[in-house]
């Protein structure tokens, strides 16, 4: 699945209702905000039972398109028909009545309640004499879940389910038949954005079974490999304009990326960048590092080197970098930076010693969302612009402007609170925050979380540039292709230990999966 080179278009012609009206037919729909055209007139047709991927960078008009379908935005012009019936523009009620259903990235489930209660919250329970008819509720719940192709006990509490199965519950709830008639179109907005890699396949199965039931699916994603895995057709949006609608079978990965970024993408490859010499000084040396989740880790990073950390969720990959940095307590072991030992659990001292650490979860431990972008960018080194008796705002602004243009942060206004920036741009700001400390050792945890392809390429370039400038870099990522692109050497973790090291031609997705699942030992690789 993770190998984007394989092109598997899953179709299920048998289940498709032929001869029917298209599930969705869009003609000339457009939307402007003030002088800016967020969506140029667009045409689109989707058959019942078709999985149609919708691709576009941040700001390409995807969200506007979806919000016009849901009735949240009123389009400026054009017509939309769902199952042959005309959608009243800007009416959420009409959208629902015609059978449009939406599952957002934030699933909107109540984690502390049962699956049964979550399914029934919207539509209400059937009651007998004011008492909930438990058996009927359970029966309908099971039918709902079956529609999403999953077998879940309705009595389970939602938060105890895996993320993929939680998504299934949200899908089941969305597709539940009600008075307004049958669901015809399901829009999934980046359903895999928060999913661990291993659960993606499970989610794609859910999508397929929904489509088999004759519901048209619009599948919004950033992940190109998923397009090849699940969609029949793909529509690419760029700058508010439809670039193309193609059958997935006619495309390969480079062609799709080309459509997406308009041929501007300049992907990096660590193999083409300067390899560190064997004589380069060791900047980071970790010995016998042990914490709750990792065991006896030995690791050396040389100047100019980019080392990757791979591994499935729960392998220790998620906390290794934080443990090295001091964010997570370490039980035994030593961490040396340029020869000097770091005290455990002291991020401030680690930063002083020249270590930078980009946390994996931006919202929880990366960003101070209510402070301005400038204040976030400056936070790791405030002394630089301190001139008694005050912090020089002028100098800070000048430096910010430099980082904003280098990292192409949009909008270019560092005085806004960080919360006013999109996720990708927040990530760029946090990247800049650490790059500006000119670290000796750069620890990056999921550096391209939630960013689009162009931003990802930009960040990758910065990673390699930092290494070339003399830093030692460690990248921990669940995105195996990212690791292959930027790392000289990849350590694969399993059960809290390093299961093997891959470099040169051995850095393949296959080798990584084998090592991380324990199917092969290092010697064999």
């Amino acid at each position, binding site marked *: 699945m993770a190998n984007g080179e394989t092109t598997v278009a899953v179709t299920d012609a048998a289940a498709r209702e032929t001869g029917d009206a298209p599930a969705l037919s869009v003609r000339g729909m457009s939307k402007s*905000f*003030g*002088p*800016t055209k*967020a969506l140029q007139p667009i045409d689109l047709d989707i058959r019942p039972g078709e999985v149609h991927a919708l691709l576009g960078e*941040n*700001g390409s008009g995807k*969200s*506007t398109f979806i*919000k016009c379908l*849901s*009735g*949240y935005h009123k389009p400026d012009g054009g017509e939309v028909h769902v199952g042959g019936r005309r959608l009243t523009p800007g009416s*959420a009620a009409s*959208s*629902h009545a015609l059978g*449009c*259903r*939406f599952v*957002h*990235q*934030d699933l909107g489930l109540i984690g502390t309640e049962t699956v049964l209660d979550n399914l029934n919250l919207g539509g209400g329970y059937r009651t007998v004499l004011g008492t909930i008819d438990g058996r009927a509720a359970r029966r309908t719940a099971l039918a709902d879940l079956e529609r999403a192709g999953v077998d879940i006990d309705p009595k389970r509490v939602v938060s105890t389910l895996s993320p993929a199965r939680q998504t299934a519950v949200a899908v089941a709830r969305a597709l539940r038949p009600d008075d307004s008639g049958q669901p015809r179109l399901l829009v999934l907005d980046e359903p895999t954005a928060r999913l661990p890699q291993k659960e993606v396949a499970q989610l794609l199965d859910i999508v397929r079974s929904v489509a088999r039931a004759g519901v048209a699916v619009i599948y919004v994603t950033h992940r190109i490999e998923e397009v090849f895995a699940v969609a029949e057709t793909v529509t690419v949006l760029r700058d508010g304009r439809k670039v193309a609608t193609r059958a997935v079978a006619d495309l390969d990965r480079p062609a799709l990326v080309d459509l997406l970024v308009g041929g501007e993408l300049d992907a990096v490859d660590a193999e083409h960048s300067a390899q560190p010499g064997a004589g380069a000084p060791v900047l980071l040396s970790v010995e016998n590092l042990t914490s709750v989740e990792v065991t006896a880790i030995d690791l050396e990073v040389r100047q100019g080197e980019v080392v990757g950390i791979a591994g499935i969720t729960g392998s220790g990959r998620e906390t290794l970098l934080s443990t090295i*940095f001091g*964010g997570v307590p370490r039980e035994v072991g030593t961490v040396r930076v340029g020869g000097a030992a770091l005290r455990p659990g002291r*991020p*401030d001292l*680690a*930063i*002083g010693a020249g270590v930078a*650490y980009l*946390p994996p979860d931006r919202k*929880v*431990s*990366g*960003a*101070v*969302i*209510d*402070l301005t972008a400038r*204040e976030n960018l*400056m*936070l*790791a080194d*405030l002394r630089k612009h*301190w001139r008694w*008796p*005050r*912090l020089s705002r002028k100098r800070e602004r000048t430096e910010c402007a430099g980082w904003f243009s280098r990292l192409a942060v*949009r*909008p270019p*206004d560092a005085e*806004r*609170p960080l*919360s*006013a*920036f*999109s*996720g990708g*741009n927040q990530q760029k700001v946090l990247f800049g*925050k650490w790059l500006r400390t000119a670290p000796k050792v750069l620890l990056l945890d999921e550096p391209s979380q939630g960013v689009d392809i162009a931003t990802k390429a930009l960040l990758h370039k910065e990673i390699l540039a930092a290494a070339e400038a003399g830093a030692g870099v460690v990248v921990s990522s669940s995105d195996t292709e990212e690791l292959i692109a930027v790392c000289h050497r990849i350590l694969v973790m399993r059960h809290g230990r390093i299961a093997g090291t891959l470099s040169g031609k051995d850095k393949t997705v296959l080798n990584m999966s084998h090592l991380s699942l324990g199917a092969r030992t290092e010697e064999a690789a």
Partner: protein
Amino acid sequence: MNRLGFDRFSAFYLGAIFILVFGIWTPDLFLTSSTVHTIASSQAISAIMAIAVIVPLATGVFDLSVGAVVNLSAVIVAVLQVRNGWGVWQSIGVAVGVCAGIGVINGFIVVKLRVGALIATLGTGTIIGAFQTIVSKQTQPLPPDSDLWNNLTQTTILGGFQIVVLYLVVIAVFFWWLLEHTPMGRQLYASGGNPDAARLSGVNVDKWRWLSLVISATLSGVAGVLYCSLSGPSLTFGAALLLPAYAAAFLGSTQIRPGRFNIWGTVIAVYVLATGIQGLQYVTGVQWLGDMFNGVALVLAVAFASLSPVLKARRLRAATVEEKLADFEEDPEEKLIRS
């Protein structure tokens, strides 16, 4: 709307309306220099208390013991002078020192024992109340009567204001500088904004929280001394200062720099509320207005402050659309709208 700053400077407009309305209604009472002077000095203590609570609030912790601390300080400084015959400066030193010590204990409980600040300071505040009874022997001390003591706050300075107003200005300028213009201030705000992210950025969150509690207690100690000198000793005034301080702090966080506890917004909030209360009291003569006004202001200000992300998002939408386009994809508010 934006250009006139009705949102960021709404307290100014509210204040202007108060002055206009009460000025027309009861000009010979309200529009007098004595009204201005009375409000200025009587509210100086409230404003210092509000500044005291802002510092821990900026780091994300509440200090509910300030009401008890300010009271204890006033009682100590009076008892030492009147019953023990101590000098003015020694008494002040001991009173403020004891309060600083209370701040250290508060910090210890919050940072080292990991007790939530709300509960911790509620507890220590009650304990301090008990100590106050021990120190005062439950009788209100007589006011100290040395000239030095009275002149400490009541000396008239420029423009006919009492010198206590000048103290407020000095304290406000100092903490404005500290919070807005120093690395320490930036780290205090970061600690309050997201303690985890701050810690991983090298900010010693525990240290700042501890220090902020020491600052709030010490400043309350100073406020207690000033209150005692200005109005005489009292066994009960502290509790009455606690709520207005928080009302002003939260109302202030909707002003000047919305979404952030800030000095000038808070000082302005104190005086605007006081102007409204004073005016209404002149007009109606009833006694319950202060409590009513401050209570309502606190609730409304907090409601307003918690709604402010929404207001922020709306303001942004009104901003140039080109810039806004990039944000469409991840607009949390719009995500709330589900079919």
